[in-house]
């Protein structure tokens, strides 16, 4: 699975996710990536793209949940990501990337690693795999 989330200089958020799904999957299997709210979500406060165990991501409506706890619990982006990874995945293994309309960037995962990279306008840039 691959994904990208962006907030532009005008504060507009967007997310995209694309995948081939599971190796040896049954024909017709649909994972989290195309399901808005599960694997991909964007609104006026954040954008999120997920990867990992699709069935667990679907059960947890993971991407939308980040926006929801920001909206209803008043959490900041990193706190929202941490909350969702810890509280909404049950035993599933997954990760996500996120940005907020205020120009923050965040990621989280509960497995060994996640291929990811992020950058911000103030010069921060990071590419990593492991925790």
């Amino acid at each position: 699975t691959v994904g990208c989330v962006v907030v532009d200089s005008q504060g507009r958020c967007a997310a995209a996710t694309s995948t081939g799904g599971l190796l040896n999957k049954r024909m017709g299997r649909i994972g989290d990536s195309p399901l808005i709210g599960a694997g991909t979500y964007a609104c006026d406060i954040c954008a999120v793209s997920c990867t990992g165990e699709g069935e667990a991501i679907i059960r947890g409506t993971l991407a939308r949940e980040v926006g929801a706890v920001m909206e209803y619990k008043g959490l900041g982006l990193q706190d929202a990501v941490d909350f969702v990874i810890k509280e909404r995945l049950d035993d599933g293994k997954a990760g996500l990337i996120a940005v907020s309309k205020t120009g923050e960037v965040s990621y989280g995962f509960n497995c060994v690693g996640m291929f990811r990279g992020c950058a911000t306008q103030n010069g921060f840039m990071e590419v990593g795999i492991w925790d």
Partner: protein
Amino acid sequence: MAGWAIAVHGGAGVDPNLPAERQEQAKQLLTRVLNLGIDALRSSGSAIDVVELVVRELESDPFFNSGRGSALTENGTVEMEASIMDGVGRRCGAVSGLTTVKNPVSLARLVMDKSPHSYLAFSGAEKFAKQMGVEMVDNDYFITQDNVEMLKLAKEADSIVFDYRIPTVGYETCGTGVESPFQMNGLPISIYAPE
């Protein structure tokens, strides 16, 4: 006004024994697409255009599991899916079951922009792709030799695999000498190699 920010991912769940050269390849690809997105943002690209641009690039590279290089189904074919969402107005588009569309994320964008729907799948999505005139290719384009070998091993292991792949070499010794007790699909995590 807040500044721009961008994040990309290429899948979660990585074999702790991932060879250094594969790690380096992954980092180089991630850095390249990140810089592509950064350049677009510096040129005042909109968020929705930048996410499509970056994901298209990742789909076109066989390294990760999307587009060319997608994981294979039980029948040895590729069935892809993608989605895109614009936070402005919460507009969205999604596609599933694609077999011949070169860049699924761009078809998802067309579903969002050019159709009254939010999600098209299988034959309906392929028909829409033809109507929209997007680039289409044979299913073989998406299939890599590595993935053919991995499907063979997955069938032998009677296992489905999410964002991991079984290594084509060293399979017989996998799972030995690894301290982590973590398992997936009933198999030691160490037998899986990342994308």
